[in-house]
């Protein structure tokens, strides 16, 4: 599998977002080669710990719970992990 992907592919994932305020758009001319072979993906343990800390926050925990529902349709951090991992992998275009 070719792990050197063209930046243009990544642009397809994120440019729509950044374009709204202003982002460069990678054209055929602007393609860059980026290796994601060793790109870091958050571990289940790291995600669960960080996520739970946000949910347990006395003032912002309720809002975080609502946002987690929007992300993964669950309020359980461990259950949300596959979705979050998938999002990150989409950024790296590993999927």
């Amino acid at each position, binding site marked *: 599998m070719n792990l050197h992907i063209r930046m*243009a592919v*990544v*642009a*397809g*994932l*994120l*440019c*729509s*977002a*950044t*374009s*709204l*305020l*202003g*982002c*460069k*758009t*990678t*054209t*055929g*001319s*602007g393609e860059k080669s*980026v290796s*994601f072979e060793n*790109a*870091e*993906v*958050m571990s289940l343990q790291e*995600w669960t710990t*960080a*996520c739970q800390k*946000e*949910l347990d926050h006395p003032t912002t925990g309720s809002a*975080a719970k609502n*946002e*987690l529902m*929007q*992300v*993964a349709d669950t309020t359980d951090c461990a259950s*949300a992990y596959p*979705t*979050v991992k998938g*999002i*990150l992998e*989409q*950024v*790296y*275009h590993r999927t």
Partner: protein
Amino acid sequence: MTTKLLHLLTFAGMLLCSSFTSAFAAQMPLTQWETLAPDEVGEARRSADELLRQIKHDYTDQGKRAFRDAHPRGIGCVAATFTVEPNLPLKYRTGVFAVPGKSYDSIIRFSSSLGPVGDQAKDARGMAIKLFGVPGTKLLEDQPNAGTHDFLQINARTFPAKNTHDFAGLVRIKTNPLNAIAFLRESPIAHALVLKAAFSLSSGNPNNGKSLAEMQFFSMVPYLMKGSSINTPVKFTSRPCAGVAQRSLDGSDGELRNDLQSRLNEGDVCYDFLYQFYRDGAGYDVENGMSDWGGDPTLFTKFATINIQKQTFLTDEKLHYCDNLSMQPWHALAEHQPLGNINRARKIIYEVISKSRHATNNESNKYLEPTSSTDFQALRDPKFSVWDAIKVPAAN
């Protein structure tokens, strides 16, 4: 060599310019619904600088025409009329809508957020409307006397970032996707939501594969509606008129252009222009770009009708003219002031990028804000090749 030096100096000048613009923007008065986010001006300025560097890398350094960073692919511009509802209630008669039944000459730019790639790319689409003949002082300091008012829209209800800080994070990821992990670690749940929203806007956009004439476009972020009897945040939308014909796209790289041209060869294309009003206690947040005010059709009030008359828009001349236009939320009357930190950042970023690309393309003399669609409609050369055929003009 001289050209490269010119580009370098232009780039350096734009970086300085962004700093001055940012400082100026910081003095903008806030409405009662707004709060200045920590370092939002700095975040916007740094994003603008980063985007300028990207444009330089992608286009200028390679001797290519510098396209706008935001929505660089102009699917096409069309002349249109924007007619205020003849029976608009008295309380809504303010700003652009002060005179019921008034019809504005206008140009609409349809766009894709990706670069000069084909229409088939899964992507967000834009619909920016520039009205002409709008009296009154405009909010953009450089062009207070411009007779234009712009409405910028995307085919999604919300912006994919809550605020300028999140947006700056997306810009950093765009520059280098490996930055995603740091972004996620900074605020795991909130930033997972931002990344998900970014994907939903492009590859996951439910409008992918649909005709522009069948899409609904949204302001995403709020604006003010201020008059003698009204003072409230609003969002606006352009919704296809009832009865629009549903058609399949042809599957080509120019499927959106071809579809729109085909429709405009046969007749007019129409949208209703509507507003949605802020409601206290409904959880609406003016400072949160991701605040969804809901899509219930009953929440919207019609203010105008957009009619795109039968015409030929798919020519090199018209695409070139279209590319030179500057669509900017702050080309606006104070009655319709853009609200929230995303809009405040847009003011900084759009202005810097617009000036930069016009300068690097040696087209600053053409950067004057148009006063009508007359020049656009007078472009009669039917030649149409491809988008990439547009070259950078030689330096004078």
